[in-house]
């Protein structure tokens, strides 16, 4: 065991944590802005799968990973628009609609992807060192010897943090989730904006799928997201609806994933089945702890989360 805990090993695990956590981060940010707008989307797993498939398909069709990423964004947005129509437009039950989206996305991606299972995409997002920054000792290796999708996720996280906490539009977004009645009274079109955020969130989750299928694990296989969409939903609670904390959570899980793989190759004497349980058990633990913390420090969910808004019901 002593050869595991060398500095070089730790740095490589941290770098791998960021690489593996990026898919989770995109998905988590997508769910985060959706929930900030007051809508719960449990369809993230299905959206990610469609994103992963569309990423590979787009890349196979065009030869470019960037086209694949764009296809994943579009597929995510399209999937989420079903949820938007049902929950925002028709005020359907958000829990059941999200579950339906996951079941639908799982089945549809398996059906549509039947002919490209295991076909390697012609291009994927490979390591792309940032000139200069990559040479910084330790930090350079961890943060700046990553792929383009990772760098974009840094930017998206920073942008969303700024957007939510520092702009007028972000204030409106928070109003949608906290008090849609007040937002409506302020002249905000609640229905339209909520729908837009659900769709934008779906696009991010779709890109999260492509971060796997064109990033860490190139190619398409059925159900390849393996529950990451659900972990992303749990992470939003850990993140207390804050994009910066979402990044911390996503990298923590990326670390569990990366560490689990490395423990396996280091020959740790634990059944791989138990090692594979770690991310799921860890999710439960993190969820319980962060729910407790959220209650104690009043970092609660958007007040109107999960509640559909109808003007007629306004009290």
């Amino acid at each position, binding site marked *: 065991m002593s050869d595991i805990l060398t500095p070089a090993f730790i740095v490589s695990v941290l770098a791998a944590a960021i690489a593996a956590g990026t898919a989770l981060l995109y998905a988590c940010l997508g769910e985060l802005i959706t929930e900030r707008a007051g809508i719960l989307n449990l369809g993230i797993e299905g959206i990610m799968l469609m994103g992963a498939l569309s990423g590979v398909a787009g890349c196979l069709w065009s030869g470019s990973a960037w086209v694949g990423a764009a296809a994943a964004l579009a597929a995510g947005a399209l999937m989420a628009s079903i949820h938007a129509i*049902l929950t925002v437009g028709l005020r*359907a039950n958000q829990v059941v609609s999200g579950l*339906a*989206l996951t079941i*639908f996305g*799982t089945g*549809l991606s398996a059906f549509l992807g039947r002919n490209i299972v295991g076909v390697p995409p012609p291009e994927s997002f490979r390591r792309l060192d940032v000139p200069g920054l990559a040479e910084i000792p330790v930090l350079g290796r961890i943060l700046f010897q990553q792929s383009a999708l990772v760098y974009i996720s840094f930017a998206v996280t920073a942008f969303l943090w700024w957007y939510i906490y520092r702009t007028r539009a972000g204030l409106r977004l928070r109003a949608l989730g906290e008090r849609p009645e007040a937002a409506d009274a302020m002249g905000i079109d609640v229905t339209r904006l909520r729908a837009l955020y659900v769709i934008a969130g779906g696009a991010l989750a779709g890109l999260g799928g492509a971060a796997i299928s064109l990033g860490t694990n190139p190619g398409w296989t059925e159900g390849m997201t393996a529950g990451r969409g659900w972990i992303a939903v749990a992470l939003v609670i850990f993140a207390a609806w804050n994009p910066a904390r979402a990044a911390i959570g996503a990298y923590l899980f990326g670390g569990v994933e990366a560490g689990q793989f490395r423990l396996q190759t280091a020959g740790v004497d634990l059944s791989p089945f138990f090692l594979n*349980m770690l991310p799921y058990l860890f999710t439960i633990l993190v969820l319980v702890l962060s729910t407790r913390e959220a209650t104690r420090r009043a970092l609660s969910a958007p007040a109107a989360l999960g509640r559909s808004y109808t003007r007629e019901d306004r009290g």
Partner: protein
Amino acid sequence: MAEPGLLRGYRIERVPSPPRGSVAIITVLSLLAALIFGGLVLALSGENPLTIYQAMLSGALGNWNGVAETLVKTTPLLLAGLGVAVAFRMQLWNIGAEGQLYFGAIFASWMALYLAPGAPGWLLVPLMIVAAMVGGGLWGLVPGILRAYFGASEIITSLMLNYVAILFSDYLIHGPWRDPQAFGFPGTPAFPDAAWLPRWGTTRVHLGLLFGLVAALLLWFLLRRTRWGYEIGVMGENPRAALYAGMPMARTIILVMALSGALAGLAGMSEVAGIGHQLQRNLSPGYGYAAIIVAWLARLHPIGAVLVAFLLAALTVGGDQLQMSLGLPAAIAPMLQGTILFFLLGGDILTRYRLVKRTPALAAVTRENEPA
């Protein structure tokens, strides 16, 4: 209030309690719309939807063999669907039926192979039923406790436990419970004959179906005719009122989750004792997830769940047949299941709201009531 042009002169009114007839009509229309939409998706991906639907229908219900297979698949869908329905009644979103099914199967196998392998059938089968309900119940209890005492979302915890249960089952099959004499696919040794549920004639339809029907009746009685069933409904619809009425929320959350898990666990027992006669990989092709659709399509009604479980079983068997007859993936079935749920959810708005023509007097009243 600015009305959209389309609705000028009308207003949308909430229907207090939708009549049963209209709910049934909407359900059937939603099903049809879902099939049409699913057909479009299939057509767009270059398949002929009519050929596919016909192959699915004849595969599932076109001959006695198909009907029997549909009944075989009805069993786990019904039992797990009942479990999901009882939790959903209390607005407890237990989506861990899949894992609870696996744990039921694990406990039943434990009983049959290691705890009471020598017991005669009249004793062993009931023991396995109890073991499975305890196993599934424990697996449902965990998210229940985490929700009741820590406020952790049962949606996430119950789902995470699905993955854990399946991995644990795989561990047992590949590790301590592996049949050393087995070649090829790993699995436990076969159960003693006494643990095999009797089958109907030469078909694979087994006693588990009866468990499902009995469970549906018992659950209907529990929900409709007992005080506890009534309280579950109140706590789901209006937790604040339930709290003021002094109903024991935390205890009921835990009990309902355990009951929900126990029913799914029974589904797992009936699969291993009725079909596989051993614990093996891929025990369930997602029955626990389809159970959510069964529950919702049946409007959380236990008797309705019988019909819906049969319907979804036919869809599943039809999907399996596609693989053999047309070489198409069985994933078409879950895709259609998801679509059905979409249309059902969308169709529900027609039962919950109605358009009322705005008469001048009524319009004045509405305007008066509008907050400034």
